[in-house]
């Protein structure tokens, strides 16, 4: 299942907060400064609901991605398992 690491700093916390509200998403950590978010099938976020300005949105995966980008445009991202 795809996963992302999220640096535990205020500007990225909306990713963690929103993932915690979803029953199928698992949020672990923080460990050594990172949360890990995973979800079966796909991880999806939408920029406006996170309250992210464009500059932060486009760097939202800075913590790291275990998986691959299926879609990442100005408003929406969908992350899935990496196809070898």
């Amino acid at each position, binding site marked *: 299942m795809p996963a992302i*690491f999220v640096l535990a*700093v205020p500007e990225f916390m909306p990713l963690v907060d929103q993932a915690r509200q979803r029953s199928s998403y698992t949020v672990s950590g923080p*460990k*050594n400064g990172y949360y890990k978010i995973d979800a079966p099938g796909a991880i999806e976020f939408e920029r406006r609901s996170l309250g992210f300005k464009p500059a*932060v949105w486009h760097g939202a*995966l800075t*913590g790291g991605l275990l998986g691959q980008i299926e879609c990442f445009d100005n408003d929406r991202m969908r992350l899935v398992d990496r196809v070898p």
Partner: protein
Amino acid sequence: MNSDAIPIAGVHHTARPTWKLSDTVHFYRDLLGLPLVHAISARGWGAENHADFLHFFFDAGQGATIAFFYYIGTEPPDFVRPLDDYRYRASHTAWRVETREQLLDCRTRLERAGIRVHYQVRHEVIESIYFDDPNGYPIEITWQVRPFEAIDMADARRSIEAAITLEKAQRHGGAAFNTIEQVWQAKATALEQELGSF
């Protein structure tokens, strides 16, 4: 700064050439209100084709200055002409203010002086306004929301190390390095090994 670092203590000056002397002085001294604090006037020396010149400095706070060279009797070469391109604008200086109120005050004062502010952008830890001087040089004024901490340094190291690994692999005939997704993937793979199970 660690004890091995060279003992620099901030910015003394940034310097760029100008072929618009009066416009530049008016902009920095009169519109932005930065005092003209020093001016070198000299015959060309050093390089054989070096023009006579003025090298002048505006106070930019905390010991920093904004400096220009004015090369008398010359025309600007093509390589200094501003371009409407993000790679040209990458070379810029960002000047610091201490609070968001000061940033907004800067914006108000710039616009009152007839200077167009292109953007106001909230980044991860800074918020900035962007405008151009009369030479077409991009200027940024920025406010840092929070200080950089150890967690930021560790994360920066991981990002850059992941990217360096990809750059090296490409240089040695490996996979092409052409997306940030590759950095995110390499970083996560390294992080997973480092952190183990959560």
